């Protein structure tokens, strides 16, 4: 038996060993430059989803009457039609308040009839997709089921996006309490238009929870800590999300024991719906529904001073109609 290897064999073996060593070294170099798994991604600054004003159309409308569907339709009509806000091909994200696993009559969540009408309007306007998303306090599946918001979404052709861990990422809001905070970003990244629909609610700490506080439902992370600076947080949210449209759903008004409610005595029939492009103004109007004033809501003043809207809602061109 020959003790020496052939030249071909030697080249093959040395080559294989060298290639493996080079692959290992190269792989190590590449891996040394990669981000560690679990490292926070770069914060994302939310864009503005606002649309241009329309000549002759007001920026805010208050509609009284019933049923809820009619209120939504009338409000959109007064603002110049849904086409002002949604164009064919848009991916619309609607953020209702689905915070609690409670039936709609308790008034702690958005009225599903309002949501259904809004989803349907967006679909009619040619939206490619209508996403309905919230990061509720209670278990998300149960919230979307018991509130009726899940069913309303699907019936009108929209899609519920339940929050998953991977949907969250840090937001860029330098100099604010929310800088780097974990936010339900994925649906926001997909969306070309954003609409918020918030009920009118008494709130233990903030005094009232309406369109601005509704954005709190996009927050992840240890958001229970934010109660330490709740007014500051809500005012920051007013600048964080610049939506296409905000809807204040006053069909039911939670007047006490907020924001959870729980008893028929806590809810009154409001039969009113306000819609507009300025959430600060809408909330200022909403305060009157709770028989308080804009001045009672510290966060409205803070948002106003930072230029995120006006807390003097009467200064806006507001149309009031009854159906």
């Amino acid at each position, binding site marked *: 038996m020959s*003790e020496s*290897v052939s030249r071909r064999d*030697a080249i093959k073996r040395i080559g294989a*060993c060298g290639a493996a060593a080079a692959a*290992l070294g190269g792989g190590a170099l590449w891996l*040394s430059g990669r981000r560690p*798994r*679990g490292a926070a991604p770069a914060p994302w600054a939310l864009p503005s989803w606002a649309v241009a004003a329309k000549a002759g159309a007001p920026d805010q409308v208050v509609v009284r009457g019933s049923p809820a569907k009619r209120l939504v339709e009338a409000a959109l009509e007064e603002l110049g039609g849904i086409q002002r806000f949604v164009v064919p091909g848009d991916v619309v994200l609607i953020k209702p308040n689905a915070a609690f696993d409670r039936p709609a009559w308790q008034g702690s969540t958005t009225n599903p009839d309002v949501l259904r009408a809004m989803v349907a309007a967006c679909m009619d306007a040619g939206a490619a997709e209508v996403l309905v998303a919230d990061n509720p306090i209670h278990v998300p599946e149960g919230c979307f089921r018991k509130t009726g918001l899940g069913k309303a979404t699907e019936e009108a052709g929209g899609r519920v996006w339940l929050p998953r861990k991977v949907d969250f990422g840090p937001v860029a809001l330098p100099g604010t309490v929310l800088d780097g905070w974990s936010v339900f970003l994925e649906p926001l990244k997909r969306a070309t238009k954003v609409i918020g629909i918030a009920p009118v609610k008494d709130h233990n700490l903030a005094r009232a929870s309406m369109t601005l506080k509704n954005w709190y439902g996009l927050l992840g992370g240890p958001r229970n800590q934010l109660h*330490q600076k709740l007014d500051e947080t809500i005012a920051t949210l007013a600048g964080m999300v610049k939506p296409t449209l905000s809807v204040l759903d006053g069909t039911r008004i939670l007047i006490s024991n907020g924001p959870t409610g729980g008893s028929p005595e806590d809810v009154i029939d409001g039969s009113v719906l306000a819609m507009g492009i300025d959430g600060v103004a809408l909330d200022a109007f909403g305060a009157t529904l709770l028989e308080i004033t804009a001045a009672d809501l510290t966060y409205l003043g803070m948002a106003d001073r930072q230029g995120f809207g006006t807390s003097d809602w009467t200064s806006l061109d507001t149309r009031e109609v009854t159906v």
Partner: protein
Amino acid sequence: MRIANVRVISQAFFLVLFIACLYLATAPRIAGFPTSIFLEADPLVSVAVTIATGHLYHVGATGLFLGIGLLIATLILGRVFCGWICPFGTLQHLVHWLGFSRSAKARIDGNRYRKWYWIKYVILIGLLVGAAFQILQIGLLDPIALASRSFTDFVFPVIDQGLRLLGLGGIAPSQTPVFAGAWLIGIVFFTFLLMSVVIPRFFCRAVCPLGALMGVFSRLAVWRIHRDVETCDACNLCLKGCEGASDPHGTLRLSECMVCMNCVEDCPCQALSFKFLPPSESAKPWPDLSGRRAVLAGVGGAILFPSLRRAGATVPLSGSPGWIRPPGSHPEAGFLARCIKCDACLNSCPTNVLQPAGLEAGFEGLWTPILDMRVGYCDVTCTLCGHVCPTGAIERLTPDQRSGKAERPDGGEGPVQIGTASYDRGRCLPWAMDTACVVCEEVCPTSPKAIYNRKQEVVARDGTKRVMQRPFVDPKLCVGCGICEHECPIRGPAAVRVGSHIGTI
């Protein structure tokens, strides 16, 4: 000089160097020596931590690059590390040299390959698959981590105590450190060592996941042991000193060979040699592990580790465990994806506050560092644990980064807060027993102090009025160092205790 003697010198050198590194990593001797070099040069640490984190941790050109370098050396030369360098291998070598039979026949039988030596490959596959799920348990069995932990937690304290009893001073600068549950660490260490009396290098041959990894990477080695069948007279004397039980008398099991060179020395016919590119047919390149077992090991790891985590055998996934990690530690999940339980941090800790967790930090957290403020406290100017951590589980901080004066690697602002102190007012002397105290406020190291007093008028039991100084905590200033808990005069659970960082905004 005989090549085997050169190897013995190498083994002795690296064993002494390993122990010296551990000795020098103890405060206050630590002075910039690369004391974690063995852990960093451990290819299993490099590979598994990189799998778990998706990133190769390095400090400039060193850190876990060293382990990759050693793996490249293994590609070329085979498992030279096992036979020439590994301190835990050398210790086993020493034990079987002392304790195993001297008879040539017994040694030949003891060094025959046993068919269950494939177990180490199953262990390796299971552990690496676990790492892919970010569950890093290599530290339980990695020989360097195991030896580092055992010396730190068990061997050194025992020797230290012995020296003090003999009136010879000690290893530790002031008093012998104590480590909770170190007895179990010692039992594991000595069981593996003493198994070498029954089967030489039992751990290396049957258990060692690092040896298994290197066994796989030996496959393409261009230098290896070669037996010339024409010269060989089949006396089997080559088995007498074969450390790896790698069948040098037959077709060499390349994955088992530790390149100890004993066979070359022991062969009376000079049939064995360490040769460049010997004929392929004189060795089996792959480990003796059936594909079925390999797949089962992978599937087993993929089921076992995630289900252990899901089944709550591990940490709460809430991200706020009830134990305190060293300053600079990654958040719990990231910490567990990096910590190899080598306990280098415990070794470096000047106050003994760092302790090996038992099961209180979950199964996954076994022998990882946690702080026990009754044993020690975390000196707010100290960052040694991060500097000796080989994998970056505890990030390297400068004192300025720790105090918040310089930008922190985790992007956080202000001082590093490892926890927050809070009062148990039912146990605190000024709060519950009308007795002056506030030692906690006195020792609080931050400026301004996180613990402050309020003067409050109280009516004592006898009806007299007096003014008590009662302590409070400012959670924004408290860094969780635990010196308040350490110095609290209340026996048993202290009246001020550090829990997870409270997280005010």
